């Protein structure tokens, strides 16, 4: 966990981060990021495998944090 982020939370919200959980919030459409549940931190943020879903259902993939991309195929077959 980022110590600077912990300091930010303490300063702005008066919360001390004392415990960490590996539970993460979920999908990109819902929002990926750091969240806090009382004093328990929610969040993992080491996402290596990225999928881009097009309007027409084409799936593109990157397995290296976005450095290189390739086409997987269409969801509707």
């Amino acid at each position: 966990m980022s110590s600077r982020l912990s300091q930010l939370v303490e300063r702005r919200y008066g919360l001390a981060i004392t415990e960490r959980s590996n539970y993460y919030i979920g999908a990109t459409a819902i929002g990926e990021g750091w969240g806090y549940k009382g004093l328990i931190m929610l969040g993992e943020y080491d996402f290596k495998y990225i999928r881009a879903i097009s309007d027409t259902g084409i799936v593109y993939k990157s397995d290296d944090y976005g450095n290189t991309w390739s086409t997987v195929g269409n969801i509707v077959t």
Partner: protein
Amino acid sequence: MAVASNTRAAKRDATTAYVALNYTDGIRIYKTNNCGATWSLVSIQNSLFGYTPDSLCIIPSNPDIVLLMAEDASNSYIFKSVDGGLTFTNKLQIVRNTTGHCRGNFLRFGIGRILAFVPTKYGGINESNFYGYTSDDNGDTWTFRVDAENTTGFPFGSRMSSLVEYATGATCVPGRSDYWGSGTTGVWFLETKNWGESWSVISIYSSGSPDWDTAVVQLLNGDIVISWNGSIYSQPRLYISKDLGATWTLKTPSLSKIDNMTSTKNRLILYSTVGGTIYISDNEGDTVTPVATGIEVVNSFLLF
């Protein structure tokens, strides 16, 4: 073969995700169990023919629950499935602007409360507005929380592709004023610090109005990044906060548009419809590097 449209995706867990999309027979629900490598058809919602999916929300603690925000020509809806997307029941219906272009979205707070920003009607002009609702029972009932227009004083529109809880109960929703109607333009951030119960305007940029597409992400270092499409400017915009939303800094990265955005660690991943290009930035938009081109319009990113 017909072509799907309006595909929206949401992740359930480390390997599983759902999509909803328009097809010739209605809204179809698909599911992957292998990080998007292959997809299987879950259901065809024939009764939702002519509806457009806005967003999906999956409940990690109950993976059989799937929430679908959708709209038809007159209304916005939230439908709920309790059987993994096989069947859906209408849980919320509000009037939307028939000519509006807003896209709603969900945010699931860490405590389990769900926030839904649902497109609704703004009277008289060619734009839309949002109502914010929360649900504490996984989408069965919804409590009205905010009229974005009344809070900002102006119509409040955007196509928000991602929202994030960046501290306990805290999130911000980016919008923009009416471009076509009132002549008063600007950008707004609505922020809540109490899980959506009350809202305030945290920043106003009044001299211009970026285009519709917005996204909010948070980097590993805690910085919050909001993107706006910049199609009526020469450049798109990023707003960066290094103090959890207390103050914001404007950046104008060197690319033509930002239509969608996600992040991993401290890297921004930006999608632009110009050339169908994916860019990466490891310095919060100071420099951007194109890494792929010819990518069709990206509505959703999934991170595994």
